[in-house]
């Protein structure tokens, strides 16, 4: 992840200061408008460059560390002023091996590497993710560079920034050029930059493209460019048309704007079910009904049956002879231009529809599951509530106020829950458990009781019904009894369930909702299961055209359910609104109960799916029902309801709803239809499959027919070898089980990996805090150092390439040093990035000091060990592998004489003292050398002072060694 904002300031003091908010004025300032533009010494430019291009330079740094000392030195001297003040060291021909430390070599990352054209490799070629990340890093970095308007903090020169930016930009442009038009547009759109910058990059990419093209066949290129442009314009107008066609877009926005996402999800669900039904209607109508109309094979309506109006409710009588039901379709093969086998058409249409439905539900379920469950985490919700719960689409003033209120209540609840949960005695736990058990027992027995009651009622009703053509009106009306009871149960029992929920004390709200949902599903499924059992076992044996009877029953269920849904929204929402506002204000305005309403929809859709075989045009009724329901619910919502009090996790609920739609609902209806067509005997005297043993034998007959035709042997082969062979299913099952097992294993592995990575992040954080602390201590002790480090060091200064920088605040430089160190420890780049040398040397010194003073400082030691290990890991040449250690040892030896001096001081000040000393000694060693210019007037930067100190120390060591 290269997009860490490398340029931001890690100084906590900075973050804590409220006043800095004023600086936002300059935060987005374009980089050209740096008011502190001034000519910076080149070495500093180089240095900042090195700092800012550390990222991704690992390859180069490694290369550097592998370099032959001589070569490296040459390079150093060649660079002369361009490189960092480490330069002087390497000019000693007889330098000891430690000179070629990995640190130093990493200092060599400078402008030469930087302007290398081949640095494209810094951006991996698979850029799609990395590019945005990198760019984001860039923008963030730039922002943070300028976030600090104080000139004394501004340590990065404008030139360097500009260079860097240009470079980043070039890389980006190169990446963009490399990809296809579509990817390019996506890439540009995805850039987290302002429009101006995006346009700039786009124009660069386009310019490059066109210039490249002109080298080739310019005419052809022009043409293709034009064509692709017009295609793209065409595509965008297509998108426009699609948007215009999108159903209820405005309404959806309005609902989302006032009630938020969770309520909106109900309407989206309703809409998708509507689409499913429209599709099913189109398919059925086109492949089953239209052929019937086209060849005038309409069923004969007996003369004594007329349309009486009640049919609309009951679906019986007149409707029984229309194409509404199974019974009206003829089994004949329609002869015309093409032979159209009605039996096959009926069977395959239904099968294809069910297959497509299943595929689409599985697809949406899987994608939603991936989005909402696999990635999400059972978080307690604090951070989620605060950072991710604000619905930006809510634009209604009242709704906004309400939402704020709700959020406040929710936050308070979360906090009180947290406190409450601790004090739960075993006795209380047992009590809760008992209540849950009781509630579950009651609700389940209620569901089964309702189921059996409905079974007996249906039996009773069926005994009254005779298998005849003309029914009296009263008799027809009586058929409505069962659907009425079913819908009543569906309306009333869930109310009981919500009542139970009030008594049960659930520890969290989600569990409560889940319990409610599961109970309702059990209820609805037990009722439907009983009804199906009744149809399959009793109706199928009694009536001459039993499929139509089942179709009628389903029609009635659908219609009555529709009325009860309307009643439900009247009672559930309108009445409770009236009660809540007029009679008992304590209850308040009702909320829209998303869960209950969605379950109703699922129930309705189950009915439609079951009915698809028995009544191919049932989707018409369903479409009508859903259309009316949409507007009804919308009006009811707008008039009666208030936005939900709790910001639930709408997306997860959505997944659950889709899963429920799939599992009991779709799978149940599919297995019912499959059972009907495989195992039940179709009616003898009506419907497309009359005279067959079961519906599926249509396919067998067809295959027998096909066997005579040589061109279709493959169909026959497939039928025999695949559809009817057990071994095929056996193999498929084995393979699927095997794949599932492998994926399960992979998932387990990933889970482990995630845990490890989390742990790693935590560890990195600990490292960071530790380093920060060190840094702060260093900073605190710096004034001492400064006061004592007035000794001029002109020589070093001169060698390091020039004049004083004037405006380098030590803290800032320190932060940069630290930053670079942190970048190193990020693990993405080389560990031996430029500046850690600073830090690590300081750390190296800490243990020495502390050892001597026997003040055990375990973390420091650990840190040191770590650093050393890193050095070992990352430097490849064995001779160079432990220069650091050598440095340390050398230093230890070197420092030994000064033991006495260090004894009294603390470890930290000990380091400082050592630095001082080293410097002093350097000066002494230099003897007649001119004094370094670290005078107060030139505002010496303590960070560069630190580096200088280190340098001086090393130099002193040189001389010390030489002396010996």
């Amino acid at each position, binding site marked *: 992840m290269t997009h860490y904002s490398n340029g931001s300031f890690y100084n906590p003091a900075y973050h804590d200061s409220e006043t*800095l908010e004023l600086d936002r004025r300059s935060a*987005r300032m374009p980089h050209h408008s740096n008011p502190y533009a001034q000519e910076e010494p080149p070495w500093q430019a180089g240095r900042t460059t090195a700092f800012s291009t550390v990222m991704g330079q690992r390859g180069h740094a490694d290369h550097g560390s592998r370099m032959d000392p001589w070569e490296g030195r040459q390079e150093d001297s060649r660079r002369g002023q361009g490189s960092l003040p480490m330069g002087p060291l390497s000019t000693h021909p007889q330098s000891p091996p430690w000179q070629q430390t990995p640190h130093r070599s990493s200092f060599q990352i400078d402008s030469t590497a930087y302007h290398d054209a081949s640095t494209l490799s810094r951006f991996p070629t698979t850029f799609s993710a990395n590019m945005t990340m990198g760019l984001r890093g860039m923008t963030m970095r730039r*922002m943070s560079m300028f976030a600090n308007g104080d000139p004394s903090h501004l340590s990065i020169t404008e030139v360097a920034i500009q260079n860097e930016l240009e470079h980043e930009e070039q890389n980006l442009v190169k990446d963009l050029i490399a990809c296809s038009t579509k990817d390019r547009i996506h890439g540009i759109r995805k850039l987290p930059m302002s429009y101006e910058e995006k346009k700039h990059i786009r124009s660069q990419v386009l310019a490059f493209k066109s210039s490249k093209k002109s080298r080739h066949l310019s005419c052809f290129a022009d043409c293709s460019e034009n064509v692709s442009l017009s295609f793209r314009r065409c595509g965008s107008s297509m998108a426009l048309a699609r948007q215009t066609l999108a159903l209820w877009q405005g309404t959806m926005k309005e609902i989302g704007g006032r009630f938020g996402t969770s309520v909106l999800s109900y309407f989206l669900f309703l809409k998708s079910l509507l689409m499913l039904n429209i599709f099913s209607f189109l398919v059925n109508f086109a492949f089953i009904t239209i052929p019937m109309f086209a060849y005038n094979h309409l069923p004969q309506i007996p003369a004594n049956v007329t349309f009486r109006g009640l049919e609309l409710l009951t679906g019986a009588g007149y409707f029984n002879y229309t194409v509404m039901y199974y019974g009206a379709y003829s089994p004949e093969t329609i002869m015309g231009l093409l032979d159209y086998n009605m039996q096959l058409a009926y069977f395959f249409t239904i099968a294809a529809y069910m297959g497509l439905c299943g595929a689409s539900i599985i697809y949406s379920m899987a994608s939603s599951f991936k989005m909402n469950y696999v990635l999400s985490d059972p978080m*307690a919700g604090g951070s989620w509530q605060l*950072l991710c719960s604000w619905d*930006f*689409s809510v634009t209604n003033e009242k709704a906004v106020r309400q939402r704020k209120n709700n959020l406040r209540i929710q*936050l308070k609840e*979360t906090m009180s829950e947290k406190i409450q949960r601790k004090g739960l005695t075993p006795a209380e736990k047992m009590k809760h458990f008992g209540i849950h058990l009781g509630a579950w027992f009651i609700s389940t027995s209620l569901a089964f009781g309702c189921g059996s009651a409905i079974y007996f009622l249906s039996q009773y009703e069926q005994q009254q019904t005779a298998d005849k053509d003309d029914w009296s009106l009263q008799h027809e009306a009586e058929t409505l009894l069962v659907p009425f009871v079913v819908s009543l149960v569906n309306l009333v029992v869930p109310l009981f369930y919500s009542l139970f929920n009030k008594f049960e004390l659930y520890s969290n709200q989600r569990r409560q909702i889940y319990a409610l949902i599961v109970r309702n599903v059990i209820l609805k499924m037990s009722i439907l299961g009983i009804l199906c059992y009744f149809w399959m076992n009793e109706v199928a044996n009694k009536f001459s055209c039993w499929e139509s009877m089942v179709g009628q029953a389903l029609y009635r269920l659908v219609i009555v359910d529709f009325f009860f849904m309307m009643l439900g929204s009247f009672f559930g929402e309108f009445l409770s609104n009236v009660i809540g506002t007029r009679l008992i204000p304590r209850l308040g305005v009702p909320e829209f109960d998303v869960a209950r309403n969605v379950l109703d929809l699922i129930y309705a859709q189950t009915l439609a799916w079951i009915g698809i075989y028995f009544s191919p045009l049932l989707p018409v009724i369903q479409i009508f029902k859903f259309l009316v329901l949409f507007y009804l619910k919308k009006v009811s919502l707008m008039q009666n309801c208030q936005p939900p009090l709790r910001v639930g*996790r709408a997306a997860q609920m959505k997944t659950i709803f889709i899963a429920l739609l799939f599992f009991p609902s779709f799978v149940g209806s599919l297995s019912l239809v499959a059972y009907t067509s495989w195992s039940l005997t179709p009616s003898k005297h009506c419907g497309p499959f009359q005279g067959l043993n079961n519906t599926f034998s249509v396919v067998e007959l067809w295959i027998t027919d096909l066997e005579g035709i040589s061109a279709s042997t493959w169909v026959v082969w497939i039928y025999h070898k695949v559809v009817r062979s057990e071994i095929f299913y056996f193999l498929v099952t084995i393979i699927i089980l095997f794949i599932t097992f492998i994926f399960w294993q992979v998932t387990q592995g990933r889970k482990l990996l995630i845990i490890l990575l989390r742990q790693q992040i935590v560890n990195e954080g600990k490292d960071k805090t530790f380093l920060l602390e060190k840094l702060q201590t260093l900073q605190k002790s710096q004034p001492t150092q400064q006061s004592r480090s007035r000794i001029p060091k002109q020589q070093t200064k001169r060698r390091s390439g020039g004049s004083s920088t004037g405006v380098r605040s030590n803290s800032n430089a320190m932060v940069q040093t630290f930053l670079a160190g942190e970048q190193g420890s990020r693990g993405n780049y080389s560990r031996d990035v430029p500046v850690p040398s600073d830090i690590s040397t300081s750390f190296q010194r800490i243990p020495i000091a502390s050892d001597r003073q026997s003040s055990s400082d375990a973390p420091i030691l650990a840190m040191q060990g770590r650093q050393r290990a890193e050095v070992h890991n990352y430097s490849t040449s064995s001779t160079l592998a432990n220069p650091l250690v050598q440095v340390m040892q050398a230093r230890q030896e070197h420092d030994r004489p000064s033991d006495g001096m260090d004894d009294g001081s603390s470890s930290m000040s000990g380091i400082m003292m050592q630095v001082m000393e080293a410097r002093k000694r350097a000066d002494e060693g230099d003897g007649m050398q001119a004094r370094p210019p670290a005078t107060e007037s030139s505002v010496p930067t303590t960070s560069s002072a630190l580096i200088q100190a280190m340098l001086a120390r090393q130099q002193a060591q040189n001389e010390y060694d030489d002396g010996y």
Partner: protein
Amino acid sequence: MGNKQTIFTAQQLDAYQDCTYFTRKEILRLFFRYRDLAPQLVPLDYTDQPDVKLPYELIGSMPELKDNPFRQRIAEVFSEDGEGNMTLDDFLDMFSVLSEMAPRDLKAYYAFKIYDFNNDDFICKLDLVKTLNKLTRNELTEDEVRMVCEKVMDEADMDNDGRLSLEDFQHVIVRAPEFLRLLLFDFHKHN
């Protein structure tokens, strides 16, 4: 809607389409919404790219922003000058990022910036307190605010540095899938 060709050149429209998530018609619609904020300031001819900037007071009065507790932050984050004064380009950019088509990463980036009140590239405790106050109308006691903020930090701060970096924030967002829907506003309904 007027004659399209006099407002933008075809190239301009192409550039807008390539850089935002909008179709031509939406761009024009947004332009008119922009213009409706100050008809006397915004010319009907953008072919020569006039330097027009609408002040925050006007931008903040739009129905999408009017009641949003973060309206000022949103305007600041998306405006080039960082003070909420917006050019047409900024305006389009804002709606593009907050549109349905914008990917999660982009939204997360800007959401992070919105919550990062002091522009230091980290959401620190102070930012959280500000967010909380904006979201709850200052009605929580100081103690409660502190508790909530601590809890958030506790949960979201993966590397324990006492503030949320963009990565921490993204971790939170990945675990809150509805975020994509939440950070959304829509200009369609206001037409």
